């Protein structure tokens, strides 16, 4: 099968279209579904599947709650959350209900709800529409959290999420919706597995989402300086692929963690703690975290769209490699 050259948005829509065609139980709940959601990702999907796409006026607590009920009654709902910030009123349904259902019923009840969460960091959406949701969701037992960095992964994550029995939250970096890439629909993806996207022997950058492309660029520039910098794409943020992370650190002895989130209390802190607990004896330098500031993002100016910086990431990598 020839690869498709799709944007990430197109890859998500195509994955959903494939799932809709294959399984009558799959439905979509959202707001502004007539135009494909806030970012138009599913635009046109309502043409063949309008009876399975539900425009639900209300907050995401209602949409997630309704999705749980639909799932109990046999459906496989996909909820298109308006924006990551709109998760907040839905947390009681997600944390208290959805994530616990399969556990407390010992598997009798399942709610394979897929939450598609656009994350608008780096789009200039301002301080109240750019919530980094990793810290809210990745520590919720029972909830799988994934974050694509490419159209191929976006396609694979959607397919894998809809094939499973667990609820899955997919954090979609909105800055990547328009990024193109090759997609082979036949390539499967297993949730819970990280992937080494750049090999390296001096240091590994552990990254996810939009930070992966920045890490790759930092690795490329590092190679020009004679540094062998590897990149590990987490792909799944919960559960973390501890084996892959520790193996990469053991192989290089140095790690920098890159994610587009405020540093304090973020996912990067969890990865750093995991490395300290599991690979301390391999470390030849302190683990650094490179991410966003502990501050809201403005809606205009350079700081509104400038996410991670390849130069800053490379500088951190060089400092780490040079550390004595």
């Amino acid at each position, binding site marked *: 099968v020839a690869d498709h050259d799709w944007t990430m948005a197109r890859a998500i829509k195509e994955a959903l279209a494939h799932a809709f065609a294959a399984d009558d139980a799959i439905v979509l709940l959202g707001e502004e579904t007539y135009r494909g959601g806030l970012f138009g990702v599913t635009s046109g999907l309502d043409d063949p599947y309008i009876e399975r796409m539900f425009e639900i006026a209300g907050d995401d607590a209602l949409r997630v*709650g*309704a999705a749980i009920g639909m799932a*109990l*009654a046999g*459906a496989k709902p996909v909820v298109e959350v308006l924006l990551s910030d709109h998760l907040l009123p839905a947390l009681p349904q997600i944390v208290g209900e959805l994530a*616990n259902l399969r556990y407390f*019923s*010992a598997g009798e009840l399942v709610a394979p709800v897929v939450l598609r969460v656009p994350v608008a960091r780096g789009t200039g959406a301002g301080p109240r529409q750019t919530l980094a949701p990793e810290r809210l969701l990745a520590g919720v037992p029972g909830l799988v959290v994934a974050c694509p960095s490419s159209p191929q992964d976006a396609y694979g994550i959607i397919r894998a999420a809809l094939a499973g029995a667990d609820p899955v939250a997919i954090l979609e970096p909105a800055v990547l919706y328009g990024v193109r890439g090759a997609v082979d629909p036949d390539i499967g993806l297993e949730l819970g597995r990280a992937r080494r996207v750049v090999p390296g022997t001096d240091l590994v950058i552990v990254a996810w989402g939009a930070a992966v492309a920045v890490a790759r660029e930092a690795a490329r520039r590092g190679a020009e300086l004679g540094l062998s910098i590897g990149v590990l794409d987490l792909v799944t943020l919960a559960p973390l692929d501890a084996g892959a992370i520790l193996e990469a650190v053991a192989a290089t002895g140095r790690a920098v963690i890159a994610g587009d989130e405020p540093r304090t209390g973020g996912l990067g802190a969890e990865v750093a703690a995991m490395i300290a607990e599991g690979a301390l004896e391999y470390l030849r330098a302190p683990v650094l975290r490179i991410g966003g500031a502990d501050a809201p993002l403005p809606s205009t100016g350079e700081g509104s769209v400038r996410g991670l910086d390849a130069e800053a990431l490379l500088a951190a990598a060089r400092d780490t490699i040079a550390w004595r």
Partner: protein
Amino acid sequence: MDSLALAAQARGEIGFYLPAEPTRVIPATAASAALAPDDWIFPGPDGLGPAIVRGMPLARIAARMLRSADDAARGRALPGFLWSRERRIAPPSIQHGASIAQAAGAALESARRRGGGVVLVVAGELACATGALEGPLTLARAHGLPLVVVLVGNVPAAKAERVVAGCALAVRDAVAHAAARARGGEGPTVIAVEPRGPGLDRLAATFDRRAVAEARSRVTTDAAAAFELARASGVAHDPSPLDHVTALEGAVRAAQRARLARSRDAGG
């Protein structure tokens, strides 16, 4: 059941236990008796009555209460929380009123599948106080969903057909009527159930314990009526739900006696 469970909790034999609230138990039980077997029930935390009406085996209920090895939930759920996918009884939600949105979703799926049955949700007045009703109700009205909402408490909200709590027959009839409307494509119905007489909550607020106790005794009497109603409606299995309760209490007591005996044997 409450007295048995609370005593067991006091002895440290079971964990957190949420006592049944009579003003909710009766509507939940009576409303369940008005439904067809394929209809979904979201009973909230008072699932014992609906579970009995739907014929959940005593052994399963007792195992949950005691968290014995036979508990299908393997001890992961609270002792009084009952559900059954097979019997279409949904689990209680932890957040006030969260089950109303879930019930609306189940009704949406029912409507999508055409002929999927009616969905009943029973909620307390806090569901209204937290604003958990309006969104799901708007959804249900917009799509004409087969949803019956029974709100228990002093609920001024929701244009509702009101009945008097404690009168199981009235609740049963109101829900039966609403379910028939829903099956006919006429959309959702909200039934507000007021506590009997001056209202237990208001009585409690006066700290008049005697009056509260007297009111609760009336409610208990009506619970028996609710079970009789369920038996008469043919929904319940044989023996009658009331016999189920009696037998259940006997089973729990027997299990407790056995556990005590084992404990004594082990100790001495």
